[in-house]
């Protein structure tokens, strides 16, 4: 087995526990089935491109992006725990390089991101199947979003985990940042119709781009704006990945 794969094996072993599965699966289900249907009384339909979605379909598709983002917390948590419990140094005096360590984290969140996106798609499918328009771009768009999204949010989580010293600080910062990403985005409500300031704020948030691309894939709505959003995702993830890698490789031991 290759060194990176062995590290991924270990990452998955330490990350996939009950608490994480609840976080990854149960929360989105509550959002989709409880919030989705509860809000239907208030929100009858959501305009989306040239069609009108019911709210459960809208939120279920938003949850895919939301879940990809959440799964990337894993990378921050792995790095954080490895530093706190001495495994970072231990791995680096073992038969591995820093680059392999970083790559293993990227692959880990990529895998968890894809699996959870698949899971939420399967679970949410009954809710949006009336509006779906799968086409040749669906899978490429969802996979593109999963991968760039994983790298982007994974890098943000890594950056936070390399910068902070106390565990309280780490939890507070990471939860605040991700809460902002979750609720100031198009995951829960559409940008159209939101107050101008809020709608603008949505587009300062990478989750919005991620969710938009996933929805474009599922509801067959690819256009030049979505193309632009993909470009932003690709560039954002590349830049943040480089920063995260730099910070991690400079980490003093």
């Amino acid at each position: 087995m290759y060194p990176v794969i062995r590290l991924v094996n270990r990452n998955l072993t330490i990350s996939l526990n009950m608490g994480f599965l609840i976080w990854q699966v149960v929360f989105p289900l509550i959002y989709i089935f409880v919030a989705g249907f509860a809000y239907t009384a208030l929100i009858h339909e959501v305009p989306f491109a040239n069609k009108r979605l019911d709210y459960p379909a809208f939120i279920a598709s938003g949850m895919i992006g939301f879940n990809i983002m959440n799964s990337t917390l894993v990378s921050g948590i792995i790095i954080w725990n490895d530093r706190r419990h001495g495994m970072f140094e231990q791995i680096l005096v073992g038969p591995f390089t820093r680059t392999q360590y970083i790559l293993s984290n990227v692959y880990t969140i990529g895998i968890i991101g894809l699996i959870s996106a698949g899971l939420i798609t399967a679970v949410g499918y009954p809710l949006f199947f009336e509006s779906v328009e799968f086409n040749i771009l669906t899978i490429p768009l969802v996979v593109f979003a999963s991968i760039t999204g994983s790298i982007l949010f994974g890098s943000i989580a890594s950056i936070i985990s390399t910068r902070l010293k106390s565990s309280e600080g780490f939890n507070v910062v990471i939860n605040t940042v991700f809460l902002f990403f979750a609720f100031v985005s198009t995951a829960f409500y559409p940008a159209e119709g939101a107050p101008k300031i809020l709608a603008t704020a949505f587009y300062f948030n990478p989750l919005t781009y991620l969710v938009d691309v996933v929805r474009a894939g599922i509801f067959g709505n690819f256009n030049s704006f979505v193309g632009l959003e993909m470009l932003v995702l690709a560039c954002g993830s590349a830049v943040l990945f480089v920063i995260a890698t730099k910070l991690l490789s400079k980490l003093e031991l």
Partner: protein
Amino acid sequence: MSCIEARSISKSYDGILAVDSIDLSVPTGKIFGFLGPNGAGKTTTIKLLTTLVPPTGGTIRILGMDAISNPLEVRKRIGVVLQQPSYEPTLSVEKSIEKYAMMWNVDKKLQKDRMEDLLLAFDLQDIRKKKNDDLSIGHRRRVQVAREFVHDMDLLFLDEPTVGLDPSARRSLLDYIKKRVREGLTIFFTTHILEEAEYLCDEIAIINKGKIIAVDTPAELKNKFGREKTIKIHIDTIRKDLSVLLQGIRDYQIDYNSGTTITIQSHSSENILLKILKILTVNKIPIEDLSVVPTSLEEIFLTMVKNSNVSSD
């Protein structure tokens, strides 16, 4: 052949020299003890030798390879137990050793056999199903050391592996290390406990303030520096006038903890004793107790460290 060859390696942190141009030569198949007080530079030296941090200067050859240009090749053939704890909090003892073996690409069947041997040798069978997070510090340390033996290696670095262990666990670890060395392993072992180094090591280097102040076998060290004898004279009453009375005599100390104690420490303690006794008799000061303390390695060590501190201040 030498397992470790280091020439004038240094490491400075923000201008402070943690390791100050040291040379090391560790023969294959031996236990090399690296002894020094806290902050002496032991951990930093291990980090340099194991390629965890690059040296500020100097050259390092490990197992015949240049450690600065080939760090990965070196790391593939060494084992390292760092001073700081390292563990997977959410995994059980068993699972964490199993995963560690997997990370080192150890064959499954071999890993199973080794695991049973290690659980037995380190007396971990009762806690094999426990989570690392729930272990006591001593147990965690034992797991950390045991885990390192699950993979193949030619050279093992142990940074104060016995800290936190109870005396019996400490002894079984030292004996296990001896056994592995008989089977061909080379060990670089740091400690601040002299007895351990004396019990275990074929050769000892003493480090203080980043500099090596002596390298030799435990027996030679004793022979070279152990000729000093310590003699204690105890007097019941507090005699503050003694230092005046003993003027001109060297290599003694007075303290007033309970009564007055004169401690003589010198190569010629007997001569000094005679002089002091004469003065005490002339002044009619009665002696309560007189004892001769044979010099242990511990004292040699403390004296050497003290001398090296004085000469560098």
